């Protein structure tokens, strides 16, 4: 642009050169003088373009950086790492996966306290790397034997200067105690060694483990579903008896009938309970029969029963294809299983479920309310101080810290409304609360309040964008106000309303602080929607991915091991919100196509 301006200017000076002298002379001189003036940088606009462009680039870099980090760390977590053996000069040996490595500048006193060989190696390394040493955080597992999950190992401490990769190092993911690293020695059945030698033991394990896992799944199913159903039945009978007592008094005929029914249910279920417990015990005993004996790096042996093993693999032998299938199997466990080991392992299915259900319920609640409020403000209310005040308040509501909404939700929804509902409908269960505590419904309502301003503002803008000529056209056809709104204004504003909904969903799905007060919990034993009537349980507390991230990274005992899971869970949260948004955007595009405006 500036180059064009320059040519124009030079033309302007060139042209009058040929004109005859006289009255024009003055003009010529003036033009020449003006052309000498250097245009200021601001006037050219170039620096401002760079400034604004730079701002945009900065934003893009931050977004890409954030997403890049989360994606890289999140996708990396489940990729199987090799097991390295670190043999130290002090005789200690560690087997484990390197979780991260770093350079550090050692204190001078560190070298003095080392034994001579190591100090020599350290000095050599420092000379080579500008005074820095390298150390690794190794996940050594075997917590039951060593009481440690991780160890720091420095390069100079190594016997050969390099870690080695033992051929038969096996990684075992267990139901409890975290990972185990060791070498298979023997396969046991009922305590007797049946096979020895790493190869043979491993083959035997691979043959037996799937059967064991099937049994385990069956056991889990019995524990969670069948047991829950029985429990529910007994609980129901007890509640009915208690209700009869509350309604008609102790020893009334109704109470006696309910009491008899409850006793009968208890009798019936007692047998079923016993059967179930027996079956579960039998499965557990069967799974405990077989075990693998492993030797750790330090020569200790441990026997791990096959029932305990979730997944095992010889880390240094697996082919790329095996690695991919391990990776896929870990992801599928992550997405479909329940968490174990204080949430730091296993899956996050309940959290995914809770997040999605809560977001959807929240949207269902907030959109109608927000749209109705905006309709009144824009279409019916007469402009004035009152309306302006309301509008300003709504805008301010969007700036209220979310935890405030959480406190309000807890105080108003849970304690006041929920408490009243408990008194009225669930008196039999008192003093343990049904609705009088945090739960899915209250969390959704709280977030609906939180996101209400977003929906109202977006809807108002969309309504304002509907041309008045359309309203007039409709009125002129003899339509009433509501008919005009319903048939002309709302359809036309729908894409804008959807945009508001998308924004509200994005805001609500990622909100954590208020949820901690009104229903999100570390571990929810039951999903809010299940097979037990009435199937939807809005009073239950639930798990939420956002809260799960916080809990994993900062509240678990083994937080170093959980850190990679933080990234993976974050990745999942981003993907879920993106998915929900994409669904809403798809819906909006469909609506917009219907009302495509290509005037003239």
């Amino acid at each position: 642009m500036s180059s064009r301006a320059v040519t124009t200017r030079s033309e302007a000076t060139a042209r009058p050169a040929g004109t005859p002298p006289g009255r024009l002379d003055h003009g010529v001189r003036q033009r020449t003088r003006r052309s000498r003036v250097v245009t200021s940088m601001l006037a050219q606009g170039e620096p401002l373009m760079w400034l604004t462009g730079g701002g945009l680039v900065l934003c893009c870099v931050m977004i890409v950086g954030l997403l890049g980090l989360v994606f890289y760390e999140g996708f990396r977590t489940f990729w199987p790492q090799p097991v390295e053996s670190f043999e130290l000069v002090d005789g200690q040996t560690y087997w484990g996966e390197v979780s991260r490595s770093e350079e550090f500048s050692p204190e001078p006193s560190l070298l003095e306290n080392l034994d001579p060989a190591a100090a020599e190696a350290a000095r050599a390394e420092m000379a080579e790397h500008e005074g820095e040493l390298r150390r690794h955080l190794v996940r050594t597992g075997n917590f039951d034997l060593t009481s440690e999950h991780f160890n720091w190992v420095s390069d100079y401490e190594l016997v050969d200067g390099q870690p080695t990769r033992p051929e038969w190092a096996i990684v075992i993911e267990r139901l409890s105690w975290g990972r185990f690293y060791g070498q298979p020695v023997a396969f046991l059945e009922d305590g007797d060694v049946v096979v020895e030698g790493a190869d043979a033991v491993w083959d035997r394990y691979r043959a037996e483990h799937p059967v064991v896992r099937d049994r385990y799944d069956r056991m889990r199913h019995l524990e969670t579903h069948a047991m829950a159903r029985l429990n529910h039945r007994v609980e129901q009978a007890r509640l009915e008896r208690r209700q009869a007592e509350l309604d008609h008094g102790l020893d009334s005929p109704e109470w006696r009938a309910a009491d008899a029914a409850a006793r009968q249910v208890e009798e019936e279920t007692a047998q079923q309970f016993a059967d179930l417990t027996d079956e579960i015990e039998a499965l557990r005993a069967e799974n405990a029969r077989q075990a693998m004996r492993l030797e750790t790096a330090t020569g200790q042996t441990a026997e791990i029963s096959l029932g305990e093993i979730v997944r095992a693999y010889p880390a240094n032998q697996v082919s790329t294809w095996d690695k991919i299938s391990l990776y896929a199997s870990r992801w599928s466990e992550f997405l479909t299983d329940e968490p174990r080991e204080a949430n730091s392992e296993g899956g996050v299915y309940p959290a995914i479920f809770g997040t999605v259900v809560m977001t959807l319920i929240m949207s269902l609640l907030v959109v109608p309310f927000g749209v109705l409020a905006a309709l009144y403000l824009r279409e019916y209310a007469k402009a004035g101080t009152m309306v302006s005040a309301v509008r300003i308040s709504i805008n301010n509501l969007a700036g209220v810290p979310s935890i405030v909404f959480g406190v309000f939700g807890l105080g108003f929804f849970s304690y006041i409304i929920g408490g009243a509902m408990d008194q009225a409908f669930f008196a039999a269960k008192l003093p343990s609360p049904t609705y009088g505590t945090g739960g899915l419904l209250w969390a959704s309502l709280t977030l609906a309040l939180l996101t209400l301003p977003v929906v109202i503002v977006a809807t108002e803008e969309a309504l304002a964008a509907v041309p008045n000529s359309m309203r007039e056209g409709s009125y002129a056809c003899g339509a009433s106000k509501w008919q005009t709104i319903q048939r002309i204004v709302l359809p036309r504003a729908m894409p804008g309303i959807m945009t508001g909904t998308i924004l509200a969903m994005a805001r609500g799905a990622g909100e954590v602080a208020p949820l901690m007060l009104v229903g999100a919990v570390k571990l929810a034993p039951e999903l809010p929607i299940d097979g037990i009537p009435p199937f939807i349980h809005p009073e239950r507390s639930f798990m939420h991915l956002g809260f799960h991230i916080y809990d994993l990274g900062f509240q678990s005992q083994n937080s170093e091991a959980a850190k990679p899971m933080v990234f993976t869970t974050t990745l999942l949260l981003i993907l879920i919100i993106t998915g929900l948004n994409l669904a809403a955007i798809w819906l909006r595009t469909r609506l917009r196509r219907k009302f495509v405006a290509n005037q003239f």
Partner: protein
Amino acid sequence: MSQQKETSMEQPAMRAEAGGQGHAAAAGKGESRLEAIAAGATIEADIHPELRAEDAVLEIQDFNLWYGDKQALYDIAMPVPRGKVTALIGPSGCGKSTLLRSVNRLNDLIDSVRIEGDMLLNGDSIYGRSVDVIELRRRMGMVFQKSNPFPMSIFENVVYPLRIDGEGNRNVLKEVCERSLKGSALWEEVQDRLGDSALGMSGGQQQRLCIARAIAAEPEVLLMDEPCSALDPIATSKIEELITDLRGEYSILIVTHNMQQASRVSDYTAFMYLGRLIEYGPTAEIFTNPHLKETEDYITGRFG
């Protein structure tokens, strides 16, 4: 609009004062009559005798209208003949559109509007206490300056007045749609794509669609507010042809800025100035032999 009026009012008012008094007395001389109006005098409109012979579909009776404190219409009294095209002409801000929008009470939507007087549609009061505005608007059709098709299919646009009336019979709707589109000379062009969005049509087509919508419910009066002002000459001539075709079948009241258009399409023409009706008569007479010099001056482009 009121702003415009105010500025245009000031200068003649000052000149009128400079020129002396004698408002009503100067009726014969063009300039001074306009000056008198600008100064606020009441002047009898010149309504040609031919109009008395016509059967009026709409009778405007001493109609006054204020936007807040500003009066926009002064004592308008005029009949609108049945089955004829009546054009309203006059300079910007003279109240033509306001008058037109008062007929179907669209001005009710503006909070500050206050009226006096009444209109009769086929003998029924428009501004009476017990009048159902919605019912009233259903008896009229209106075409706006800028085409305003609704964000729905062509078919739904045309049958909109019936839809809001609760008509659900598909056959009736189809029939009305076809009749209206034929009536607005659009049927040939769109009969194969009735389900398409109306917003995908050209500007001229959109305006004819709006006419089709306006005549779908068989209105007693068809109101047109500068229907061609946003169209190119070809689309304009199509609309004009259409108006000529609709003459006789419908009573049309049309506001236009285009003098040639008024002379081409209308049977009667009313000239308005600063919220007052000045002269009203058969178009041919108004354009060739007006009674008043002001009318002639406006038509020949000497002011306005």
